[in-house]
């Protein structure tokens, strides 16, 4: 279970309030979708969870571990896939995967199984011996996804994961997310693709200007809106400027 309690973050000494007193509870075994217009604060929130941005206020607790107090322990059970796959592009794909596995302390046998399984699934097994700078954007992204799946994470957190993936890969990714959550893990991702959120997520939160303006299951969201139609209509209605 992931609990965000009253977290706030502002940039430039308070002049931009990117996340404003945000409260959110995400249960284990749940796929949670995080929606919101550009600049709403999605990436900022995610970065605070994975240890890249220290919240100005509030606490983040994952399965009883305070993410910022006991950061080493937290990091060993979180896997993060950023929106932009910037990785060591002078290394070979396999060298990168081995490096990440070493950092998580993944055993030889386990990494072998996982690397083969996921790289085959994402269809990058043939290029693992190549240097990463020769990869396409999508191939890099799939390498990062593979690396993030090497350590059985309790929390799998992804920032706009579908961007740039081909249909088959994004189908496979969705399957993986489903499977993780069946195993009782938590999956948290931000996206702009509303159909994906609608079909895949158990629960959804919509953030605007740093504040959660609605959250719940699709059913619950529908009750918020006047027109109880698609997520698209709900989203547009809720995020409309007053």
């Amino acid at each position, binding site marked *: 279970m992931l609990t965000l309690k009253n977290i706030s973050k502002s940039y430039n*000494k308070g002049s931009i309030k990117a996340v404003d007193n945000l409260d959110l509870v995400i249960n284990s075994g749940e796929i949670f979708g995080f929606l919101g217009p550009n600049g709403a604060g999605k990436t900022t929130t995610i970065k605070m969870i994975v240890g890249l941005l220290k919240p100005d206020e509030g606490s983040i607790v994952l399965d009883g571990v305070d993410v910022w107090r006991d950061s080493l322990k937290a990091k060993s059970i979180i896997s993060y896939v950023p929106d932009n796959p910037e990785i060591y592009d002078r290394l070979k794909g396999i060298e990168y995967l081995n490096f990440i596995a070493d950092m998580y302390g993944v055993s030889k046998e386990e990494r072998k199984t996982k690397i083969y399984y996921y790289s085959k699934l994402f269809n990058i097994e043939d*290029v693992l011996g190549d240097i990463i*700078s020769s990869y396409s954007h999508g191939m890099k992204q799939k390498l990062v996804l593979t690396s993030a799946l090497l350590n059985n994470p309790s929390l799998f957190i992804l920032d706009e994961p579908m961007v740039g993936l081909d249909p088959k890969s994004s189908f496979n990714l969705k399957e993986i997310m489903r499977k993780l959550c069946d195993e009782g893990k938590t999956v948290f991702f931000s996206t702009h693709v509303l159909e994906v959120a609608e079909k895949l997520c158990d629960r959804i939160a919509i953030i605007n200007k740093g504040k959660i303006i609605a959250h719940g299951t699709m059913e619950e969201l529908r009750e918020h809106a006047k027109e109880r139609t698609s997520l698209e209509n709900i989203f547009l209605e809720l995020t409309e400027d007053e």
Partner: protein
Amino acid sequence: MNKLISLIRTDLNITFGLSSIIHGFKAKKKIWQLLIIPLALLSLIPSYVLLIRGLWSFYDAFSQIGQQSYFLLMGFLASQLMVFFFGLMYVMSKYYFSNDLNHLVPLPIKPSQILTSKFVTIMVSEYLTSMPIFLPFAIIFGLKTNAGLLYWLYAVLGAIFLPVIPLVISSLAIMILMKYTNIKGKRDQLRIIAAGGFMIFAIWFQLKIQQISQKAILEGENFMFNLARDANLLVRSLGVAFPPSMWGALSLANYDSFLGLTNILLYSVVSIISFVLMIIASEKLFFDGLIGNIEVSASKHRNINKNLDKTMVATRPYLAIARKEVKMLFKTPIYLMNSVGGVIIVPIILAMSLVTGEASMEPISQFLYGNTDLVVIIGVGMIGILGMLNSVGVTTFSREGSNFWIMRTLPIKAEDQILGRLLASLFIQVIGALVLIVSIFFVIKLNILSIILILLLGLLASIPMTLLGMIIDIIRPMLTWTNPQQAMKQNFNVLIGMGLGTIYVGTLFFLIKFMFDKVDMFIIYLILMGILIISSILFFKVLMSLIEKRFRELE
């Protein structure tokens, strides 16, 4: 023309991070970081003052034999050669490896326009590095000779045009190199070999010319007579090594005569013409070396899974970090040139400059022979200095750049971070130490015990130096670079590291000098070892808490 001005402005902005400095000011977070810069400069002042005092008496030596102009030649030569060597590296990375090229090439602008804007930026960097060398020479000469207004005018012209010709030559050399090594598959290796070979050739060539001309004048029949008759004799004979420096020196030294006027004209006009010619040539050369540069070789036969199996073994985190660091250092040409290149070239240059002095060498090596302990101490000090000069520690976090998120989101202990990065630096240091020992061997034959002492104590001394560098780098890592060059060569941390490192080594040196005749050598080695170990532990502790703190705070 508007395009060009806009290009130049943008490139200057990117390179020197003006926008981000202003942004930092507005965010009010980086002010204390800006304060560090003057502090670092202050720490370099003592050595700089020493240097200038040395130059002051150096001038007297030449004026006694009536060859003051030679003093100016030294100033021009030293600064222009430096511009040339730095130029090679700047040009390589700015013209061919900077990320903005991906955006610039598709735009409707001419190669020559891109090149001009980059040339201007490099010129600015080169002023920053060459003026601290050139100005003392020009100013001392002016003051000593009570020179008139015209002298100072010429000196300003001399300073303005100083980087042009050396930079034109390095631009052309690199463009030609890049054009003809733009061959699929072997590009990087080919270029490193060619660049290394070229550097060694250039050094050798310089030394050779100096030697030949030195011999020629010393063996001339009426040397003393000629010396007295022609105040520019030394300049004319030694200036052939690099004529633009000769023109510069002649123009300043003879500012009050026709000779000065012709030389300043020659100097300025040739600078301008060479720049124009280089820009014209760039239309033909530049894109040929650039296009296809980003293409890297990927395997054709995609059946390598059998080999993958062997690579999948579990490694301890710190070893994995060390291995990754070394791989990145060796696979990024700019890092390789700066780190490994540095620790190899510095000892070689030192040894070569001692060896080519042939006649004057005899007493020095005689003296050193009786003082093996002194040689050991100097050797250890030099390896220690190389520990900072290799820039591995002091840029270790900066080099992560936009990949830094990986380190910060993985569960890595601070100790593992430190140990891994330290091992990478020591790996480079072993190379440097071996080259240094071989270089020393050319000057004086050492016994086995001394060699072991130099190696052990030198590597031990590299530890606090690397840790000190890492402390500086984690306090103010430079993570927003677009070009690996910026992470290493244009990183202010390197300069701060040099300052603090010099103070550290200098303090130890004076301490040892103080004890040298009073205390048994064995005790001195023990004390040295103790200090090195204690400061390592101290730095390690500081670094631990700093890493934990900074890894949280950074944005």
